């Protein structure tokens, strides 16, 4: 019997402020939503929601009729030239700044983009995995600018909040994730949010294809089919 392929149409995991579980990060959320500061710098470990929040900022700006752009600097194949002309946006979001610092061309491009953007009175939102002080920036002019605006650290969620976030995400996808199933996943899988969300997406697709609910036996069977950790 052939497995049914899941339909291409399903609810997208749109990143907004509403579907972000704050759990201790409320001040950061408030700052991102309401701050009129020219630059805000956000840092935290992988899976703390940096990308989600930047995209939410973009969403909000667009909804308010402002022009926004989002650049994931860790993505391979990008080039410093893509910062040219970016000052025309009311809001520029740069994700994973730590991926490009240390490279002289990127640093010069960032420095000039920063100057043009602030001269135009537009806003910059940055993220990295470390604080500005700990960033390995070679160009001192850039280094001092990155730490000029308010800096916020995103705290990792505790296990209860992680489970809640997972269930909330499942709910948004139209899937019910029972407490026991969520608990089961938390006990057996990497507990960072990126891995957990990826796993959820994979499970969702697998359950759609198999036309089965997300139960412990189903999850056990699915995990058993995957190459070991």
């Amino acid at each position, binding site marked *: 019997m052939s497995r049914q392929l899941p339909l291409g*149409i399903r609810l*997208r995991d749109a*990143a907004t402020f509403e579907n972000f579980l704050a759990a201790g990060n*409320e*001040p950061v959320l*408030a*700052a991102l939503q309401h*701050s009129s*500061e020219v630059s*805000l710098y956000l840092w935290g470990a992988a*899976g703390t929601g940096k*990308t989600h929040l930047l*995209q939410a900022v*973009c969403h909000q700006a*667009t909804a308010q009729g402002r*022009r*926004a*752009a*989002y*650049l*994931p600097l860790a*993505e391979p194949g990008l080039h410093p*030239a*893509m910062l*040219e*002309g*970016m*000052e*025309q*946006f009311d809001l520029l*979001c740069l994700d994973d700044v730590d991926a490009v610092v240390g490279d002289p061309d990127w640093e010069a491009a960032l420095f*000039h983009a920063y100057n*043009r953007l602030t*001269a*135009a*009175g537009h806003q910059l939102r940055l993220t990295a995995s470390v*604080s*500005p*002080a*700990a960033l390995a920036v070679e160009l*001192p*002019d850039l*280094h*001092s*600018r990155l*730490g*000029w*605006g*308010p*800096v*916020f*650290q995103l705290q*990792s969620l505790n*296990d209860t909040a992680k489970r809640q976030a997972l269930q909330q995400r499942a709910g948004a996808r139209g899937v019910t994730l029972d407490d026991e199933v969520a608990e089961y996943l938390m*006990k*057996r*899988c*990497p*507990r960072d949010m990126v891995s957990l969300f990826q796993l959820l997406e994979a499970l969702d697709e697998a359950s759609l294809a198999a036309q089965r609910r997300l139960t412990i036996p189903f999850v056990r069977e699915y995990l058993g089919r995957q190459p070991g*950790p």
Partner: protein
Amino acid sequence: MSDSLWDQCLQRLQGELTAQQFNTWIRPLHAVYDSHTLRLLAPNAFVKERVESNFMTQIAAIACDLAGLSVPIVTEVGTQALSDTPATPAASPATENPSPAASDEPATTPRSATVTAQPVSSRNTSLNPNFTFDNFVEGKSNQLGKAASFQVGENPGKAYNPLLIYGGVGLGKTHLMHAVGNMIVQQKPNAKVIYLHSERFVAEMVKALQHNTINNFKRFYRSVDALLIDDIQFFAGKERSQEEFFHTFNSLLEGGQQVVMTCDRYPKEVDGLEERLKSRFGWGLPVAIEAPELETRVAILMSKAQLSGIEMPSEVAFFIAKRIRSNVRELEGALRRVIANAHFTGRPITMDFAKEALRDLLAIQDKLVTIDNIQKTVAEYFKIRVSDLHSKRRNRSITRPRQIAMALCKELTSHSLPEIGDAFGGRDHTTVLHACRKVEELKEGDQRINEDVSNLLRTLST
């Protein structure tokens, strides 16, 4: 009509692409629909090429589907017209000066009423009205620089020409430069004062050369009443720009027009700058700005806090000023951070609050917490060996530390429970779970264990 077609395209694309793709490549595009052609304006050539190669087929198919007929689509590098963008708060005449690249643009591109598809040109010739002499905090380290700048502001072209302000990053060079410009404009509202970063000068010159409009470029910069050019060290190694700047510079000086420059060090020390420029730059008055001393740093903090309407206890100002010495920008950064944190948490600014908000600035390194690290720290703490933690030994002097180490691994890292079990001599995830529960239980009932765990947590997370 036009907007709705593109808006509908956007909706469809948002559903078909990942959020990342959509936000990065599609959102920055600006659409114009004229004479049945959909023109997509990209902020730069890189985005334009990426859109063409990766998304064009999809966009064309969606547009065709929505419009019911095939829609010709062209991509260009460009921006919304100046009239569309809100005017800068500085309503000085300087902002109304057409930028040279814009006025030089060859009339080959047809222009619609709302959009010009020309290369993004510098509109940042405007002065920043927030940088004035009034809000420049004076101290021993910058007194001379301020006095000289003030005189130049009062008597442009006469007092000191050129005025060169030099010093390390974040000390207020740009602030003084804008203050000079603002003062000139205040006294003579129709004065043509141009501020730009030397990188823009280079970029505009290159553009003028490409478009064969170098004469307009020259005419423009030689017609200003005052030229303020920031960070001239960025001219290093760019010979053609140096040459052009040299001539502009000479022409301005001869005409009695004011030139103000900043540099991150004494120009003679900039490698890659021509000798004749180095000596010429030193003609007028080179003034150094140095890092502010403690009293000035405190004064800066207090004055900036006051400007933001914030009550800053002086002990907090002293605390921050003592810890952050390098430059004013970093000092301001610390202050902004404290203020923003206070604002968004609703907590008052106290010493403890400042320490917490600036934790990473003060401590710098955030130790990476790994399983290895935890095992080592726990073993040291209980005076046992790391290999004991991996072993099968089951006497209490070993099992307690092992359980505590496991619980700490669960709390401080994102490793899965099976992974943690593995790292402790191949134990099962249920053992890890049991250890975590056991430690919780012991913490409740045993003061000493509770203390041990807190001590270890502190060692590991600070």
